[in-house]
């Protein structure tokens, strides 16, 4: 299992070399969005309207951070459970997004969309909000401030540690890892 350092926006060339289980240190700009924001973003795509950021090559982080302490760009910022975004993610990938960061398993439609559109689903360590928040250098709310922690933020990350869960070949580290360590009666 390899370790890569990648900078956003990601290209198909970047994503196609990644294999489930690889570690990636992400750098550059990524965007935060979770349940309510995804609903609105996909409604904009379906209505043919402009999004608050460029989807092409984008990485979307499923996170609702804590409020920043004075002097900090953001508070604690670990991943939220991803399956709630399963309804929306294939549309986001179809329209140019290349990566998602969250935790927990995705449905087959998302995995299929990763294969079709060269997308990657990355897992970050759930609950490690203090550690992951420290890798975020700047943060700015760019849409839906009324959603509070669910607002869309443009954030800059440095060596943000993630693991490839679903790759562009249809592999799934959750299934592979579990099969390896399951003890059958």
């Amino acid at each position, binding site marked *: 299992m390899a370790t890569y350092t990648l900078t956003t926006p990601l290209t198909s060339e970047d994503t196609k070399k990644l294999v489930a289980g690889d570690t990636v240190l992400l750098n550059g700009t990524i965007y935060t969005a979770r349940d309510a924001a995804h609903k609105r973003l996909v409604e904009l795509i379906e209505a043919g309207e402009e999004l608050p950021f460029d989807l092409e090559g984008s990485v979307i982080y499923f996170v609702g951070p*804590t409020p920043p302490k004075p002097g900090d760009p953001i508070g*604690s910022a670990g991943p939220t459970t991803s399956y709630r975004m399963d309804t929306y993610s294939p549309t986001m990938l179809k329209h140019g997004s290349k990566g998602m960061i969250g935790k927990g398993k995705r449905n087959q439609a998302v995995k299929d969309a990763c294969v079709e559109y060269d997308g990657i689903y990355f897992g970050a360590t*759930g609950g490690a*909000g203090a*550690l992951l*928040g420290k890798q975020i250098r700047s943060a700015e709310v760019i849409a839906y401030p009324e959603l509070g922690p669910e607002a869309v933020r443009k954030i800059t990350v440095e060596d943000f540690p993630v*693991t490839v869960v679903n790759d562009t070949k249809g592999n799934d*580290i*959750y299934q592979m890892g*579990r099969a390896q360590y399951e003890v059958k009666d």
Partner: protein
Amino acid sequence: MREIEFDVVVKAVKDMIMHCGTDLPQDTYDALKAAMEAEKSPVSKEVIRQILENANIAKDEKRPLCQDTGLAVFFVKVGEDVRIKGGLLRDAINKGTEEGYTEGYLRASTCEPFSRLNLKDTVGYNLPAIIHFDIVSGDKIDIEYAAKGGGSENVSRAKVLPPAAGKDGVVEFVKEVISDAGGNPCPPITVGVGIGGTFERAVISSKHALFRDLETTHEDPEMAELEERILTEINNLGIGAMGMGGTKTALAVHIESNPCHIASLPVSVNVQCHSSRHTHITI
């Protein structure tokens, strides 16, 4: 009749919320460290290492352990010989919750069920707190608090089994819940199992079971044996830390058992993520 000032309760609740938000309890830290050493999968081992490093950063820099600072859940035992001076106990706990979440820079995670909006003048600041009251003898107030995050809460389930299902039925149900949950509830987890009572008693017991210290086994040897059996079966599922595959999916299984109706065997599973923020005070 002993009197306790309203503001004393407010401050006590505020302090326990702020402390819990940043400081992982020692029993949980120790159990995670032991799990990291015993874990056979290198990927899961690395995940637990990150979890422990996160706990150190959170404690040293007073940052929230997890961005999901949960809903505030309280189990409160009120002595019959004590009263609150200057207001209601429920209001004092809610005020302490609001102040703790605000001053601790903790996330307000409550929203209206259908609009999904967090309306600060109604249900913001994590209000109302979820409070379970019990009346006991004495002149003290005993408050247990947990920050209950959504990821682990969402996978919890309850079911009323036929009595013939017995212990095997309970083990199978718990295994099914944890197997379906996979990495979603942020393993290594603690599993609370409520058995018996009525439907809601089983559910509340499964949540209360999560307050027990991790190193403490059940006082009834038969229940302690059942806890050990379920723990082994869960770890045999191979889920591992954050679902990456491994041998340490759960740190402990805690059972609370109650007498139940001759026709029923209710069982409830409430899951606690590795960020097990809970504490206890007596006033």
